[in-house]
């Protein structure tokens, strides 16, 4: 599978939020303003990309030689949680500006299922390290796309005369459902038609 195909797959065809329904908590929780959404999206992209590579290494250099593949979920949670903590410290040390922008979102990502999801999907699809890296980045980019679109919709919705019973969360869920519906337009046949598979 080419890298372009992986990018298309994880951004559009298997968009983490709108198709696979992973990482819905920040998608609803942090999508009230677009500035926050962009920060959250950038943090998730950063973490999925790094986590993909690190979990790939842990799996193939530690679990496979010891025949402990069935421990992948447990180990990955451990690895991701520690990794995010470490990243938070490193960012705080080397770039206070980046920490100001991403810092408050990093603890939220520690136990995010989107990050664990991409780590396990990489293993299931038997990607090599570069493919895992691409997939991790693409998954984060897809997450960012969805959450930024959602935040723009919700900012508009706040100004609209929405019926009281629908105001806030209910209309947000309905909008998310309609967005998911539109993402159904991206299909595996897209890759075939583009001669990428």
């Amino acid at each position, binding site marked *: 599978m080419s890298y372009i195909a992986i990018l298309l797959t994880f951004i559009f065809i298997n968009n983490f939020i709108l198709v696979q329904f992973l990482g819905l908590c920040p998608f609803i929780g942090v999508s009230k303003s677009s500035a926050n959404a962009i920060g959250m999206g950038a943090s998730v992209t950063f973490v999925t990309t790094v986590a993909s590579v690190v979990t790939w290494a842990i799996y193939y250099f530690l*679990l496979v030689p010891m*025949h402990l593949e069935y421990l992948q979920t447990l*180990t990955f949670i*451990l690895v991701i949680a*520690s990794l995010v*903590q470490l990243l938070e*410290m490193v960012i705080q040390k080397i770039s206070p500006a980046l920490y100001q922008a991403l810092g408050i979102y990093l603890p939220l990502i520690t136990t995010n299922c989107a990050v664990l999801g991409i780590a396990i999907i990489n293993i299931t699809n038997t990607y090599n390290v570069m493919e895992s890296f691409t997939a991790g980045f693409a998954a984060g980019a897809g997450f960012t796309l969805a959450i930024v679109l959602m935040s723009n919709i919700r900012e508009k919705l706040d100004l609209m005369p929405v019926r009281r019973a629908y105001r806030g969360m209910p209309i947000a869920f309905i909008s998310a459902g309609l967005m998911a519906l539109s993402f159904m337009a991206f299909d595996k046949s897209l890759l075939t038609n583009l001669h990428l598979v």
Partner: protein
Amino acid sequence: MQILLAVLTVALLGGAFGFGLSYAEKKLAIKKDEKLLELEPIMPGVNCGVCGYAGCNAYAAAIAQEGAQLNLCAPGGPDLVEKISQIMGMVVEVDPDQRRKVARVMCNGNIEFTAKDYLYDGPMDCNAASLLMGGDNTCKDGCLRMGSCIKVCPTDAISLDGQGYIVVDEAKCISCEKCVAICPTHVMHMIYEDSEYSIDCNSKLPGGRVRKFCSVGCIGCKICENKFPESGCKVENYLAYFDQAVPHSQIAEAAEACPTKIIIKR
């Protein structure tokens, strides 16, 4: 054997990450500014935002690192300015004239004195009520008495008394002006704490119209301004206000002469 291997692997991995993290935390620890460490605990901690920063800690950081002005904190007052200037090693002239300001509702009306346009039956919130033709009072400048200010007050200084008046506990007021900002009719004003008198009306309508719906409103008759020029009262837009800065020797007589008795001794 297999189980032992699994347990050992996870335990070692977890242990390694744990030690790694605690080592990294020591290694990567960021030295906090010493002045900041001293400043943070003396801030009032109400996070009111009057200083223009996100909260007390943000203001402390701005003082320590960006050289922000030292006297922006209203709740802290002159005492805090002095403490901060000691820590920062700077001398700031504390203006002796800088008097404490407290919030006060400039309205004497209640159900007894003031007419209503309609019967309001909605959320008990001034801003919600004011969306419907400026509130249920006929006087659109008066106090709606639904307590939006009570909800925002960080120190619980504002309360509703038995007769339907919003009263401010001046000892608790920290001059944060949150109630001034939230009030839809702008009837909440900041006045000097030591001001002896206060003119409790906010209606800018001509006297004839005020008289129709309120028996305790300023009718703009200018008796206080014209007959008692030394009273410190000025009338603008059919509304008198009391200026303590100018000589106000005749204010007691003016209060006596006011036809609607709205010049009130505090």
